[in-house]
């Protein structure tokens, strides 16, 4: 396989001091960063051609580079678009270029706003997904699981494992994450036992999630894959929406993913992990404060009204404080549960869904999708069809088992 060439269209990365981090992340996934070569005249003509007037010269250069990629003057397999975090003009340009490149070139695109603290590790999963989409289209075209395969998803909060045979889930294990390998072993053993399958009978195994590299070595996995690709495939598979557009939302324990999907292949995606107030952890803390099990929080929320509660912050600490204040004033537990779900959905909507094209159906996955109040809040916010497929909590494991079956035939 030739090296994947990722065209970088950015402003400020060299002055932020993180250009080598971008290049290092690309290198780690077998990709190479290239910069579209542009003449001065092309930079000066870019605004008129693109139709967007900007004042910063480096943003004009970004426009010219985007045009070069779309018009085929630059050959690339994927595109990385970046601007400085908190630059309003940069954000406008980044968003418009992302849309433009995605719509006009069909190349996989990722956009990111960086600070001086951005590291290669932060970018690695995104870069891995970008290159996978570029180089493994045939694998991603798989719509059915075949043979006897296993998938393990080593998440930040829980570890999931599934055993699949001939397009059916035979059994699964779902345990809290402690030690990466021990939790994976436990979940896998449960899945095998529930399936009545001997370990040696498994023909291929795929791993994903934060601990995927460790699991890959330990389980001698056929597929070691980041969550963007795996969850996209898992979501369209479980929701039976292989063809056409869809948006996958995964509110995780540590970070959230929003992925715009076409025919099961991720197009534009974002990963957020800055604020815990938009994570499953916030819902877990709310359930604890309300004295209910996390599995009961969703039903409680459905019976409540979020607007009855005043939430002044998205922060996990101040958000909980708002809920506690409401409880001290006699608020109904149902309303508090609904407000917590709405707060998480609203934050995902405001901070992440603005960066992807939200196209129906919206498929919510991950353990949090089972907290009924959350998909309901998302439905209200988006005014769109929101699907929670069966086994939504196993999305990464199912996606891994599905994709790894491609290795049996190979």
């Amino acid at each position, binding site marked *: 396989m030739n090296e994947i060439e990722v065209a970088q269209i950015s402003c400020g990365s060299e*002055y932020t001091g993180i250009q080598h981090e971008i290049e290092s992340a690309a290198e780690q996934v077998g990709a190479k960063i290239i910069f579209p070569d542009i003449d001065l005249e092309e930079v000066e003509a870019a605004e008129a051609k693109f139709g967007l007037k900007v*004042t*910063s010269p*480096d943003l004009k250069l970004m426009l010219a580079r985007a045009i070069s990629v779309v018009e085929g003057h630059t050959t690339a397999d994927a595109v990385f678009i970046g601007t400085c975090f908190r630059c309003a*003009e940069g954000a406008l340009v980044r968003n418009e270029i992302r849309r433009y490149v995605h719509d006009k070139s069909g190349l996989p695109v990722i956009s990111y706003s960086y600070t001086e603290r951005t590291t290669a590790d932060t970018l690695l999963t995104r870069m891995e997904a970008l290159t996978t989409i570029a180089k493994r289209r045939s694998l991603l075209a798989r719509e059915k699981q075949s043979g006897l395969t296993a998938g393990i998803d080593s998440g930040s909060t829980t570890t999931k494992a599934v055993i699949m045979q001939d397009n059916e889930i035979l059994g699964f294990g779902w345990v809290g994450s402690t030690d990466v390998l021990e939790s994976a072993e436990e979940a896998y053993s449960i899945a095998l036992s529930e399936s009545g399958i001997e370990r040696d009978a498994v023909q291929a195994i795929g791993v994903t999630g934060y601990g995927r590299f460790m699991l890959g070595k330990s389980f001698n996995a056929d597929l070691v894959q980041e969550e963007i690709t795996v969850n996209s495939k898992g979501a369209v598979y479980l929701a039976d929406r292989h063809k056409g557009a869809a948006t996958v939302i995964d509110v995780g324990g540590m970070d959230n993913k929003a992925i715009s999907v076409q025919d099961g292949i991720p197009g534009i995606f974002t990963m957020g992990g800055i604020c815990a107030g938009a994570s499953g952890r916030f819902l877990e803390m709310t359930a604890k404060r309300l004295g209910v099990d996390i599995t009961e929080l969703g039903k409680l929320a459905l019976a409540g009204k979020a607007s009855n509660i005043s939430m002044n912050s998205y922060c996990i600490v101040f958000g909980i404080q708002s809920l506690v204040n409401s409880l001290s004033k006699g608020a109904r537990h149902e309303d508090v549960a609904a407000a917590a779900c709405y707060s998480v959905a609203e934050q995902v909507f405001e901070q992440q869904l603005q960066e992807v094209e939200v196209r129906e159906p919206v498929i919510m996955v991950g353990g949090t999708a089972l907290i009924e109040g959350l998909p309901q809040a998302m439905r209200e916010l988006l005014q769109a069809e929101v699907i929670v497929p069966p086994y939504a909590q196993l999305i990464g494991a199912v996606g891994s088992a599905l994709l790894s079956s491609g290795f049996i035939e190979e």
Partner: protein
Amino acid sequence: MANIFIYPSNSLILYDLVERFGHKPLAVMQEIKKRVTTAGIDSPPLNITPEDPKIGLKYAAVEVPAGVRGRMSLLDPLLEDSEAAILVEDAPIGFGCMGCQRTSELVGFLIRAKRIPILELSYPTSDDAAENFVYQISEFLNGLGDGKEAKNE
């Protein structure tokens, strides 16, 4: 000989003019050269490291984009050493640019706040305006006192 801050800070034409009139141009190329020739720093292409935007906090708070603060760390020694300045507005990219309009706005403000002699010019768009442009620069630089007369070339 005075230290003349020029903006755009990488303008070769301004650099050359200042030098011809016997003063010392303060340009960003000098700062970049220092970085790329310093052994032990490995942060290509400019050898700006993630520490530099922190130096830029001297001029702009943390809510200002890191790219602006990184540029300010490059310009910091130039601003510090400047005794006079020539600023050219609305110049085309080929004349020189720092890439970021927000940086340009901040630099313009900071240099004006220093209360040093400043010549502010618009980029010339005709031959006559170009002659006048060079003339104004020569008058400004000669008026700074200890600069040499322009070479008659």
